[in-house]
């Protein structure tokens, strides 16, 4: 029959249309049980964005936000460690690998020199990233041998003036190690473990050398 294909197709549309309301009702009755409804509810959002999703899948941004996977990358940031006395120490040694690997060449690093001897010391005086040029590829974080530069999860970076705000300096880029641990717990744990193992190996070697 001519037109049957269209009617059958419209049946699919109708099913999609109803699915949203059925899902709404499910969460509505759930709400009486105290779980908070289809929207503005982390549990419902996870279902709505997962492989079991039914009906409309929009997110009510900015009230609702997607949960970011750990590997999500946006702009790079620099990590500093804080010791017991509260002293901050940059992990960056200004070796320049990130600046060399950066595809659009958006990283500028100024190496520190010892004021007395004039010899370079492993600390950056300044560290700039032109975020207009950065292509968010994550190669800097991937090849940093000191886990000093990592990719951030913060994506809400709109500013009023790109001319004066979009070259990030070291102060703007730096974040404590605890922040890194909070956004990438698995990666951080793995790297901490590797570093601890390296330290232990180094100590064992030193002890062996001392004994000999």
């Amino acid at each position: 029959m001519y037109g049957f294909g269209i009617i059958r197709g419209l049946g699919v549309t109708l099913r999609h249309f109803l699915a949203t309301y059925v899902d709404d009702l499910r969460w509505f009755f759930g709400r009486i049980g105290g779980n908070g409804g289809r929207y503005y509810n982390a549990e419902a959002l996870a279902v709505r964005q997962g492989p079991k999703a039914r009906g409309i899948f929009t997110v009510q941004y900015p009230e609702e936000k997607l949960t970011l996977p750990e590997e999500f990358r946006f702009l790079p940031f620099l990590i500093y460690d804080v010791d017991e006395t509260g002293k901050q120490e940059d992990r960056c040694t200004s070796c320049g690998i990130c600046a060399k690997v950066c595809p659009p060449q958006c990283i500028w690093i100024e190496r520190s020199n010892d004021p007395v001897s004039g010899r370079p010391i492993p600390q950056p005086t300044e560290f700039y990233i032109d975020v207009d040029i950065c292509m968010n590829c994550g190669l800097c974080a991937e090849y940093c041998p000191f886990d000093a530069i990592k990719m951030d999860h913060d994506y809400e970076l709109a500013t009023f003036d790109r001319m004066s705000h979009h070259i990030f300096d070291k102060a703007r880029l730096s974040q404590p190690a605890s922040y890194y641990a909070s956004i990438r717990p698995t990666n951080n744990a793995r790297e901490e473990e590797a570093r601890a193992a390296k330290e232990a190996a180094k100590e064992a070697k030193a002890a062996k050398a001392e004994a000999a």
Partner: protein
Amino acid sequence: MTETQTAAPPSERLEEQFPGVVTRDERPGYSGYLVPVDSLLDVARAARDRLGYDYLSSVTGVDYFPDNKMEVVYHVYRTTGGPGLVFKTQVPRDDSVVPSLYSIYPGVDFQEREAWDLLGVRFSGHPDLRRILMWEGFAGHPLRKDWKEAYFEEEAKPFKNRWPEGKVYRIEDKLPVGKNAVFPEGFDPERWIPETDAALYAGLIHVDDGGNRGSSPERSGGDGHSIGTDQIVVNLGPQHPSTHGVFRLVVSLDGETIVDLKPVMGYLHRNHEKIGERNTFLMNMPFTDRLDYFCSMGNNFGYALAVEKLMGIKPPERAEYIRIIMAELTRIVNHLATIGFLLNDLGAFFTPVIYAFGERELILDVFEAVSGSRMMCNYFRFGGLARDLPEGVLETISDLVNERLPRRIDEIDAYITNNEIVRTRGIGVGVLTRDRAIALSAAGPVLRASGVAYDVRRAEPYGIYDRFDFDVAVRTHGDIYDRYLIRLDEMRQSLRILQQAVRDIPGGEIQTGKAQYQVRVPAGESYGRVENPKGELGFYVISTGKPNPWRYHVRAPSFINLTGMAEMCRGYKVADVVATLGSIDIVLGEVDR
């Protein structure tokens, strides 16, 4: 790993056919044949007619600046499968004129224009040799090694002033608007009248009506039954919602019927290849994401293959499986989007797209979890991958490919396939015949919808595709409807591959050797090609042993598929142009590069 350049018997026959004329390319790391420019046409004709290499994949030039030579490289294949044939011809750089192969392989049309535009190789006998990606107010041929842009920093990356001095500056402060372009001598952009449009319009077929129709209102439709029509030129685009980006189609119409059509592109051109030749090998990986931004995993795959061939390494077993999984998920993402947008072009505004994007979203979540980015994945590395699958991702993929996606693809099938409007708009419209599809170098779904069972995954398997059980989807009519159906078929075949891959994936390493940011790539050439969702994507890479590639060329399927656009549209109505373009499935990031 594929072995394109193994000395197969047919290639030897090329030497026998032209004793003393055709010589083997003996440069270390190179393969194929060197052909004198005078006998190029004869050799190409013999390759096609006597040796059966009917499908021309890629034409490009290489500027050997130190030797003062310009080389043009041709890659031809058989549509029945198997390794290809590479032949090259060398001409002096200052006066580089090469006969056009247009009469033998009409598919060279846009590729030769591109080589003229970017490298300044003049193809004698080409019917319409104009610039294609650049505009007429552009000085020089940018891929020539001695060409430098207005603000030239350094020959190759990494730039020396980034470290350790690192005095930051903004490039636009050094290069204000007005000084950031160089024009040819005597060219004033303010006074320029685009003569090229006249040339463009003149290049269109014009039906000579002898002044009988449309010239005066009395004569038009004078018999009272038919309406007299006039031949007019209409520009669709550059800004038009149906062109999927900034893209222009110049259509010559007789009434509503299309007489001829020419695509105009280059509005998004950024000279990807020049950027690539400045970059180190690894730096190009995230740039390939930006070619066909729907299929960044597939682009990564092609580039990784090309460089791995040069380096002579292979990824470990687990990485091979993950690569296949990602490439096939990409195919599903792309085809879902294509079907959705094709329906948009047919007038079913956004409901099919939303359904398709709902599923695409779930796959993009997988990409985000493994690579960190939904579309600009940058996930492949030479000899492996950037990182292993995070915990739980394989289960999600398994859920998707075994449970959800098969049902959703069936749903789309039920939703659209028998829709009478889709059938009426699609069946018998925009036809590209089998022979013309091969001749015009159409690739991917466009080629297979015309009845050619040519799929690089089968014709010349790469990665570990030879281990999977799947069929090459083929449809025979070559119309819009078949190009829609073939995408459904391909998604189903992709699901089959995915189900096998998810079932069989082994544990283990994901990187051969240590991950390095400065890879050592031995001198030589290689052509890595993959069956990307839009067609055959090829990367032609030449290394001189330095950290940067000497030549980096992309055989872009969207770009080359457009060669057949005029053929598909002639004789149909102007409203079908939009649907035909939608069925070819282009992405302007790849067309314009």
